[in-house]
């Protein structure tokens, strides 16, 4: 099994498309850093202008911690695309390329092949998150320094002390990883059914866009639906930066995401295990 996981990781590492995600993160985060370096103060003045009439905000609010928070919020839409771009191709790409039949007649069970691919996808997702963490938080702190972090909410503002931030980021990145694993599992699931690599990516993105739109529409009818949309729970990482932390909401959202992951993976596994390989 270890050999198979290594082989799948090797395939991911050998494909040029796998580096597009890392490159995209580097470019986006680099541009945000550059923009903040040149005009960050004005940007934050504009953002916090509502509160400047109520509070006296003094000191350096532009720091690496806040930049990392802004980056994480901005990348909520892009990161799933980058993940689906690779994970959506892992089974369907082999099916389309005819290489799936090269593997499926070997002395390993379909289950072993499936989970080797799935674990490799999880590792790739973790690498993306890790890379995002390094660029946004580590490089951000190197460029903009450490300090207290001000977090805007729809109904107010939270200040988190510098010594109280790192562990929150640790959990935030873990939740972000879980969110992206949900996307990876979803695209993986579609990939198990599809015979080309474009379909899973398109379906995955279309789902995220539709669910996000439904999630933002303030129409009472959708209020019944929203708790069941996985996109509703993917942004729960933000709650870790609020005071007090609503752990119950975070736990419920994480449990729902895990349920989705198990569901998508289970469906994909059963289909892959039983499907006829005709390509």
């Amino acid at each position: 099994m270890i050999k198979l996981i290594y082989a799948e990781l090797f395939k991911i590492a050998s494909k040029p498309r796998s580096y597009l995600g890392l490159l995209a993160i580097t470019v986006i985060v680099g541009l945000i850093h550059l923009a903040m370096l040149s005009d960050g103060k004005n940007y934050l003045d504009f953002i916090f202008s509502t509160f400047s009439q109520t509070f006296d905000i003094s000191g350096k609010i532009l720091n690496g911690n806040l930049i990392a928070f802004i980056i994480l919020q901005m990348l909520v839409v892009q990161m799933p695309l980058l993940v689906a771009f690779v994970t959506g191709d892992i089974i369907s790409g082999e099916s389309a390329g005819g290489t799936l039949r090269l593997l499926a007649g070997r002395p390993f069970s379909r289950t072993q092949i499936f989970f080797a691919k799935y674990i490799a996808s999880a590792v790739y997702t973790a690498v993306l998150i890790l890379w995002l963490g390094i660029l946004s938080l580590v490089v951000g702190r190197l460029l903009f320094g450490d300090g207290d972090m001000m977090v805007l909410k729809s109904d107010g503002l939270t200040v988190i002390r510098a010594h109280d931030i790192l562990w929150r980021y640790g959990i935030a990145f873990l939740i972000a990883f879980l969110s992206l694993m949900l996307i990876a599992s979803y695209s993986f699931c579609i990939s198990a059914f599809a015979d080309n690599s474009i379909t899973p990516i398109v379906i995955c993105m279309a789902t995220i866009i539709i669910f996000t739109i439904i999630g933002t529409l303030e129409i009472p009818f959708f209020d019944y639906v929203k708790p069941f949309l996985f996109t509703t729970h993917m942004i729960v990482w933000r709650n870790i930066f609020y005071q007090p932390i609503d752990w119950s909401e975070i736990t419920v959202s994480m449990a729902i995401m895990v349920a989705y992951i198990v569901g998508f993976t289970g469906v994909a596994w059963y289909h892959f295990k039983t499907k006829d390989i005709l390509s």
Partner: protein
Amino acid sequence: MKIIQINHLVKTFNSFTALSGVSFDVNQGEIYGLLGPNGAGKSTTMRCLLSLITPTAGSIKLFEKELKTNRREILSKVGYLIEKPDFYGYLSAKRNLNLLAAYAGKKISSTRIAEVIEQVGLNGRENDLVKTYSHGMKQRLGLAQVIMHDPELIILDEPNTGLDPLGIIELREFIKQLKQQGKTIILSSHILSEIELIADQMVIINQGKVVLNGSVHDLLHQDDLHVVFELGAVEKATSVIQTSQWLSQLESKTATTMVFNIKQPEIGVLNHFFNENNVQVTGISYRRKLEELYMSMTQNIK
């Protein structure tokens, strides 16, 4: 020892029946030809042997063990190439083989990989990306991955497709070498002459059914040919052969042709006989028995 035992294999895809009770056995050390028109069920049978497709009914035993319950053990002794040779184009041939070695179920050394690369004639190009390869080179790589783990049973689905004449000859020799090494080989083809040249046994499949199964030698009676003489005057020819030895070998006739069941050296003798008796011969053609057999088996079965 029976290497393959297929018993009443049935496979349906929704309402379409691809295999309808296919049964045949393959003995150890034989080259077994699977013959049939496109869509006859050859590839489906081979995919069932590799568990790429789950049969709807019937049983498959490989190495005298049920495939369903001994999959890992069985498939570690099988090498295969199904349809066209597809590989990871973004990797070199060597990397492809290294990668597939991980799936082989046994340890394959880099020395062995170098050895098979040389055996199939890809040395010097093994580090080039496969996407730069021609079809023939991909086919060679396909054969390298088939043999790299030294399998006992080799399954080749239409291995001649897309190869030039030289490639076909080389492949034929390669398969013969594998047989000499004691391998059992099952290959499908719609090129009749290839099956005739290399197979010991053959089965003709049509519309998902086995319509003929047996030894190639026995089925062909290779000495006999169906020779068609195109004649200027069939009536005159009929009268001149009435008192000759050729009458017993006359199989059929039309307004312009006479078909004889004769041996190859007799073609010239019969031609000479017609000339001597002033019967103009405008053309001679012959069809091999296998073609006759194939045509009759695949066109008349409903």
